[in-house]
């Protein structure tokens, strides 16, 4: 039985994992970089060990250091969270070699699912629909043309070695095929030194829908229904919800079965996610598998009523799953909003800095998973995610209303955040109607970036507050210099209730 878990992560997810550890009477061990000494995960843990300089490659990605801390602290297991080493097959293997339980799948499953083309082949083998296209690298121009004709337009040409949109071309018209292939190949060669490409059918109004699965070490696999993740900005998820407004019970059941089959095909163990791309007619295709906990896992927890981290630990303890498929159902609706330290008024520029003041939204149906506190300085080195608001309602309408109420009351000063942008999404007719796909943000850009103006006397009260605050500071400063009363005594700023206290 696991008695002590090292959480090889930081930020909200480290704390989220430690919360469940505490509920299960398991001790938690934090690791931290130079930049994170004051971070909440260090303060929340039972024990904390320094593992190196601020850049992640020298700390949170340093396998040797983390294994070393696991041994020194006597941790039985390591929970990788998401990001960092969570999908690193080498790390999973190293844990196994060192006799430490890795809370996640074995290195084989991670490797298979980590390579796009291998994953695609494996899924075809398991009878799971994949986006029509090539399963091999293509180098010859004419072969590509033939394949495209076979698949049917539109298609996307992607660099095999690629990523980040480089060497990628979308082709709508027959006459553009050749020039697009040439352009993609030459761009791929320039960027990666390899001009091989592969081709996939382009889904023109794509929905991103994923299924949560849990698999134990005894061959049992269940799914916990879907999450709709189509609200994305530059391929980064912004808002997720469950159930998907697009879904029907029949398709849900079928996709769920395919998700379970996908996990079984790779002898999966632990919590994982099968991502599908879905068109408007509910045709769905395997996209990829995330072999870890997702950022958006709480909406599933809320609607299905299962603590996914608790289940991960159960599975890592070699116990059989606590739930059978037929016991699970979706109760109500949940939406997650990700709050990033980014400035929506300046093209979402990262906004690290010192948190001056926070008001957290609370009340019925609101869960808030965060890690920052007043006086904490968000470091420049890591992900800009500050926190996640997860809201539940008996139906989608009530959930949206509640999320608006929560965003309204959520205040952070000191850094710029995406809160107001998220509020605009909640008011966008396409979101309210549930009629959206991955183009939503692009399509609604003008609406989303048009800030509402206060019609009342907002500016007047702002001016009065600034004036008053300035005058009080002047008074305080004059008192300090004017009289000799500061006698090295016991009087400090801010001890009087509610007086101006910077």
């Amino acid at each position, binding site marked *: 039985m696991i008695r002590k878990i090292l959480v090889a992560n930081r930020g909200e997810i480290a704390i989220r994992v430690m919360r469940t550890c505490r509920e299960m009477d398991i001790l938690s061990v934090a690791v931290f970089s130079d930049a994170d000494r004051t971070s909440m995960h260090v303060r929340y843990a039972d024990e904390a060990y320094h593992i190196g300089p601020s850049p992640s490659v020298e700390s949170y990605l340093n396998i040797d250091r983390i294994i070393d801390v696991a041994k020194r602290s006597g941790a039985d297991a390591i929970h990788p969270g998401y990001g960092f080493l969570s999908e690193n097959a080498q790390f999973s293997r190293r844990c196994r070699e060192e006799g430490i339980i890795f809370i996640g799948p074995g290195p084989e499953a991670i490797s298979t699912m980590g390579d796009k083309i291998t994953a695609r082949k494996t899924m075809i083998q398991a009878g799971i629909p994949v986006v029509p296209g090539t399963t091999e690298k293509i180098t010859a121009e004419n072969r590509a043309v033939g394949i495209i004709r076979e698949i049917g337009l539109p298609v996307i040409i992607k660099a095999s070695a690629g990523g980040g949109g480089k060497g990628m071309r979308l082709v709508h018209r027959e006459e553009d095929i050749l020039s697009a292939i040439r352009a993609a190949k030459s761009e791929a060669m320039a960027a990666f030194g390899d001009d091989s490409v592969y081709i996939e059918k382009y889904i023109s109004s794509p929905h991103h829908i994923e299924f949560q699965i849990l698999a134990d070490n005894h061959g049992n696999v269940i799914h916990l229904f879907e999450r709709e993740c189509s609200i994305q900005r530059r391929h980064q998820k912004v808002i997720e919800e469950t159930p998907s407004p697009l879904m029907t019970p029949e398709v849900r059941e079928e996709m769920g079965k395919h998700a379970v089959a996908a996990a079984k095909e790779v002898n999966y163990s632990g919590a994982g996610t099968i991502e599908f791309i879905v068109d408007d007619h509910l045709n769905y295709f395997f996209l990829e598998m995330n072999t870890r906990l997702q950022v958006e896992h709480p909406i599933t927890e809320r609607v299905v009523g299962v603590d996914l981290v608790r289940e991960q630990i159960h599975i890592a303890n070699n116990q059989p799953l606590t739930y059978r498929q037929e016991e699970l159902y979706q109760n109500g609706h949940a939406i997650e909003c990700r709050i990033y330290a980014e400035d929506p008024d300046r093209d979402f520029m990262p906004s690290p800095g010192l948190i001056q003041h926070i008001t957290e939204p609370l009340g019925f149906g609101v869960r808030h998973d965060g890690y920052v506190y007043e006086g904490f300085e968000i470091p420049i080195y890591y992900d800009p995610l500050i926190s996640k608001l997860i809201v539940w309602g008996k139906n989608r309408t009530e959930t949206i209303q509640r999320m608006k109420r929560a965003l309204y009351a959520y205040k952070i000063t000191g850094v710029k955040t995406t809160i107001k942008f998220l509020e605009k999404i909640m008011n966008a007719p396409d979101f309210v109607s549930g009629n959206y796909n991955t183009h939503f943000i692009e399509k609604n850009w003008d609406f989303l970036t048009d800030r509402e103006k206060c019609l009342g006397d907002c500016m007047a*009260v702002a001016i009065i507050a600034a*004036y008053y605050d300035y005058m009080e500071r002047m008074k305080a400063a004059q008192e300090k210099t004017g009289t000799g009363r500061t006698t090295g005594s016991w009087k400090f700023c801010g001890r009087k209730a*509610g007086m101006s206290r*910077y």
Partner: protein
Amino acid sequence: MALEIYIDGRMIAIELLHQKGNILKVSIDGKLYEVDLVPVEKGVYSILYKNKSYNVELVPGKKPKTYEINTLYNSYHVDIMDSEAKYLKGRHDDHMDDKEAISSPMPGKVVKVLVKPGDRVKAGETVVIVSAMKMESEYKVKKDHLIRSVLVKEGDTVDGNQPLVIIE
């Protein structure tokens, strides 16, 4: 005391006419406001005006005598224009065109410096790359320029609004 405040592109005259406890009578550009104002949390004032309830959040700006102010849907940048501030602003305006700096709009780490003093750069050319929160931003010149001096080196950590390169 009367004061001028620069907000949202215009200068506003404000004066406290009367105060009794937390009830203030204030004139803004000649218009009278009676408000109930109390400091509640660090940098937060609760203001009741015509029985409407406002929470006004003040964050001291990076420069002295400035604030970033948030009301519910609006954010304002405010400059308190006392006599010292006016004097400094006057001086600053005079010397404005002499030279310019390329500054980082956000805190981060300098990943690459692509120029050295004496270089001539063309409009749109990147001079420095700064990384923050897993995102790299390229800082470019808008016009052709001569690089006068470079104030940072690779690996440096920079603040928001810190000058990186001085151009002519």
